[in-house]
């Protein structure tokens, strides 16, 4: 079916099978920051932003996407705040295998759009839908707090 939506600020028109999900589509067009993990809405690796809020791409049918506004890390890499977040994650060693990192960055971005000074509980809640099996969440929390406190050397 024919659909039209916004991906990272650009209009996308595509003919897709109605039953295709957004994760499959994004990877088919080389948007590789969005990772395939569990494929059933549990791990959070395929997190994207839809209207500023985090969503699991694997749970979104392409056929329901008309007119929606989707963002991935590819569209935010040049953004100043994203640069600072990435610098903080690197400085703090908040990345090990890196598989969940794009999702964590988007979760933090979504949180900061709604609340520029989130407390620890809010950051924790923002990360709660993302499985990270390397870091134990400690270093991502430290990195996120550095961003919130404006303590990143970028």
């Amino acid at each position, binding site marked *: *079916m024919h659909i039209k939506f916004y991906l990272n600020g650009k209009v996308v028109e595509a003919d897709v099978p*109605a*039953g295709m*999900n957004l994760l499959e589509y994004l990877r088919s067009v080389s948007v590789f920051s969005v990772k395939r993990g569990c*494929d*059933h*809405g*549990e791990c*959070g690796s395929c*997190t994207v932003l*839809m209207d500023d*809020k*985090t*969503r*699991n791409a*694997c*749970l*979104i*049918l392409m*056929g*329901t996407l*008309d007119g929606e506004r989707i963002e991935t890390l590819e569209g935010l890499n040049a953004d100043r705040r994203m640069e600072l977040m990435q610098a903080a994650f690197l400085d703090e060693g908040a990345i090990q295998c890196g598989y969940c990192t794009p999702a964590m960055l988007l*979760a933090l971005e*979504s949180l900061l759009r709604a609340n520029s000074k989130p407390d620890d509980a809010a950051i924790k*809640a*923002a990360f*709660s*839908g*993302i*499985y990270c099996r390397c870091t134990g969440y400690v270093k991502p929390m430290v990195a996120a707090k550095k961003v919130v406190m404006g303590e990143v050397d970028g």
Partner: protein
Amino acid sequence: MKIYQPYGLGDCLDLLSELPQAETVILAGGTDLMPRYEQGKVLPEHLINIKHLADLQGITETENGAEIGGLTTIETLRRSGLIHRDYPALWQSTEQFAGVQIRNRATLAGNIANASPAGDTLSPLYLYHAKLKLMSRHATRTIRLEDFIAGPGETTQERGELIHSIILPRVTGSSCFYKLGLREAMAISVVNYALRYSQSAGELTDLEITAGAVAPTIVFLDALTTAVLSGETNSTVWRALIGQDIAPIDDIRASADYRRKVLGRLITHHLQNLGVVCHE
């Protein structure tokens, strides 16, 4: 598969009445439907995406309580001052519901229609004696939630019907929700319960408890609460009475025996914390 996206409630009800029921599925948030679709367990000919139905959105305070549109997301409930203030057990269930990505998309009517014995909002909704407003092209009816959910994944939803809203009566006393999961976020309940009570001069005057993930549907622990209100203080008796109202099973998350034991312990502990006299 053909996807329909009605923008008006009337159009949606027309579709529901015209399309063949066995091959038609309603899509709300999709957080339960999509995994089943990807596994090939649900392969509808016709999929009706109802997310654009504005009539089914939002939380309204009414004269007798509150009315929640079926498409209201779990995250919207979690952010609602009205739910936090008047229906704390429901609010607490939204706090512990999956993770942010799922809460942003999952809807209250979807959690009900999915009819999972472990659905987190269900124990609070049973506790509050929620009713559902069901609409079809020809009729609107109101039904008690416990009459709507018939078993795991089974409901008494009739052909052409859509869950329009969830109606909550005004609640007296205090209430809360407790969930035991295997981790804090993204966990399905091993057991959960919701509890409502009133006290006067340190004595319980009213007590109701519902429990989830311990039977094919949510259950009221009436044998226990009746006995406690009549002055029964023996916790061994309490646990036996809880056992009368539940029928847990072994599954991937826990054994039936563990569920029985842990629910008994949790509720005994909870009642003791409320100051109920308890003898081992």
